[in-house]
């Protein structure tokens, strides 16, 4: 077994753009759940709305990239309104069920043959990245970074993705030490109490839902630019619960929690994959086949989610006193 390459691969996940995407989605979810107490089970759909909003604007309406990004963000805000208006007045578990249902509806809508001329149906869309890659200021070439070497385009999207993570994290940090953030935390603790103090709880919840959704949408855009295509099956509920695992791993009501959580999550995922594959290749796990190793990884994600919620709801790095979960 090549331990060095396994560790290198795992280490590479630390700064991979995919990690950054999940971190952005998790920061958004920390605004929803960690600070406001909203059980959003449709975070993957927020990312998808942003990604499709951008891709469709570029391909169908020939909008320049920045305009398309803006349209994607507006679409995400509208999605938050559609989701929030009927459900944010209801009990928390209704929001959970409606968000997961809506995210599936969105996926069905993107898959259906009827809209395929615009959405690409189940094949999805591609060829929308030309303007983005043309913006790359980094000269063509290979760049060494520690043990890794990246092409100029890889380096570009890594830097951009983590810059966006930094922007999201700073925004959350600024907001959560402001009186606005105080109201959100109050709502998380007891919305009736906050209402009785004269705050428009519904408006705050909508604002939080929109803000967290915007972060996820940015993440979704980076994801599809990195992949060069956007497909409906990339945004299933499994992705949503991976985001939840990332968030809960790091600590739901902390600024750095989602970042650390995302890094730990993907490094561990890569390590288990590497080590188990290595063991299977070496014939040490005779009862497993190569594809089953990939399946076991998902099983472990589920198990991690369970154990985290049961034994460490404040996350590995969260403040025990500020742990979450009411009711």
């Amino acid at each position, binding site marked *: 077994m090549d331990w060095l390459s396994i560790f290198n691969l795992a280490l590479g996940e630390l700064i991979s753009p995919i990690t950054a995407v999940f971190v952005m989605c998790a920061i958004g979810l920390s605004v929803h759940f960690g600070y406001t107490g909203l059980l959003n089970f449709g975070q993957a759909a927020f990312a998808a709305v942003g990604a499709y909003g951008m891709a469709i604007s570029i391909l169908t309406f020939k909008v320049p990239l920045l305009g398309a990004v803006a349209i994607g963000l507006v679409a995400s805000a509208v999605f938050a309104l559609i989701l929030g208006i009927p459900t944010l007045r209801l009990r928390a*578990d*209704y929001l959970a069920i409606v968000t997961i249902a809506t995210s599936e*509806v969105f996926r069905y809508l993107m898959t259906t043959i009827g809209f395929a001329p615009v959405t690409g149906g189940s094949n999805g869309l591609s060829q929308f990245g030309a303007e983005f890659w043309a913006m790359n200021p980094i000269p063509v070439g290979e760049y060494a970074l520690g043990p890794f070497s990246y092409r100029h385009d890889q380096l570009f999207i890594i830097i951009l993705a983590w810059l966006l993570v930094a922007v999201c994290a700073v925004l959350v940090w600024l907001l959560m030490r402001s009186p606005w953030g105080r109201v959100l935390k109050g709502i998380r603790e007891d919305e009736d109490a906050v209402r009785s103090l004269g705050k428009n709880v519904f408006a705050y919840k909508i604002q939080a839902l929109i803000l967290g959704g915007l972060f996820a949408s940015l993440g979704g855009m980076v994801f599809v630019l990195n992949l060069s295509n956007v497909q409906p099956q990339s945004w299933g509920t499994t992705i949503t619960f991976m985001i939840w695992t990332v968030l*809960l791993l790091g600590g739901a009501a902390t600024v750095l929690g989602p970042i650390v959580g995302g890094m730990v999550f993907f490094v561990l995922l890569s390590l288990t994959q590497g080590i188990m594959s290595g063991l299977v290749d070496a014939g040490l796990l005779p009862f497993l086949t*190569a594809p089953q190793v990939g399946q076991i990884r998902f099983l472990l994600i589920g*198990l991690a989610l*369970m154990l985290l919620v*049961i034994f460490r709801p404040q996350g590995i790095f969260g403040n025990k006193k500020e742990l979450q979960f009411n009711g």
Partner: protein
Amino acid sequence: MNRLMNPSRTRATVVFSALMMMFAVLFSSLPATTANAADATATPAPIGQLLIKGTLKNNNEPVAGVEMHITGDAFDGKATSGEDGKWQIEVPKKGTYKVEINLETLPEGVGLRDADKSVREVDLNITSTAAVLFPLGKDMRVVQPFGEQVVIRAFAGLNLGLLLALAAIGISLIFGTTGLNNFAHGEMVTFGALLTWLLHAQLGLDLIVAAVITIALSAGFGWLQDASLWKPLRKRRLGLNQMMIVSIGFSIVLRYLMLIFFEGDTKVLSGEFSPVEIGPIDTTVTSLISMGISVVALAAVAYFLTRTRLGKAARAVSDNASLAAATGIDVERIIRIIWVVAGALTGLAGILYGLQFQANWLTGFAILLLLFASVTLGGLGTALGATVGAMIIGFVVEMSSLFMPTDLKYAASLIILIVVLLVRPQGVLGKKQRIG
């Protein structure tokens, strides 16, 4: 709220690992049998080879010479079914593929039982072989009058609604007595379907014997889940939202356990289709029997809840657990019984669903949202509400295809759910909550 210094923590850990062990024991016999089965039915795929395959049969007779068109990820290939009705194609890499059956190449008078499903999607990302099934039957391509279509769709809706009701009542009873929104419920449906496949189609047990064993094991599975996971968590006073997320993690664990042990291909629980025609409705004996069983089971649940002491106690616990406890009802015992009943009902739903529509590791997960929609529509926590909600969802799913593309039929039912919550948040039969 969680208390980390809870003395039951270690106990919970022990119980939890015991649960995992039991799963391991439960499934340990499977890989051998599935391997044998693979030998018997098809050539096993060498490691690294990616295969999409299937068998075409009409009335248990193989159908030869049908052309399949497989596309995806820059791949484009064709396969033709042989004398035994089998076809297969090797694809170059992992990904999602589309399989389209060429309807022109079907024999005269033979058509798809699901006329709108001539294109199927296969996910070859995590498995190396995928089976695609196109159930054949009478050619339905002849356009029927709208009135007949309505009758046909309504019948299908009734059938689906009854199946959903069986499984949804379990969710509803569990929610009512414990407050848990159980996201791992879909896997109980899958469990029922795949276990029956194993016992009946693989081990050759008589279908009825297989079904009875499956229901018994499903009931036991329900009991096991409560005893080893949920009861310890209730003792820890884990919050309901926390429990909901635990159930999500648990559903992922169960789902991938089933994938690992049953593999990803779609299983045919029974090849018997014996077609029946009732007016314009083209159905099968299996479907009719299934509907009969569903009605009987639902009636039995209604009787249990309204006429027996135990059922009345269960409803009392749903109404107000602490009040019920104060009147001398053993709440934990009631919850245990509810889990057993829910397990049995949901296992039965899995069997009936699998017999009619086949099953794979994602079957239950695919209908989970329809189940939640049913329960929420009817009003969380009432069994009657869940039944009514399930019937509505069943009808909406099937009738929607009269007006909109069929690949949006699940979406239609979820949109109905959202609209209902807008105008009547407590559900169709739910009561308004008293505040303060």
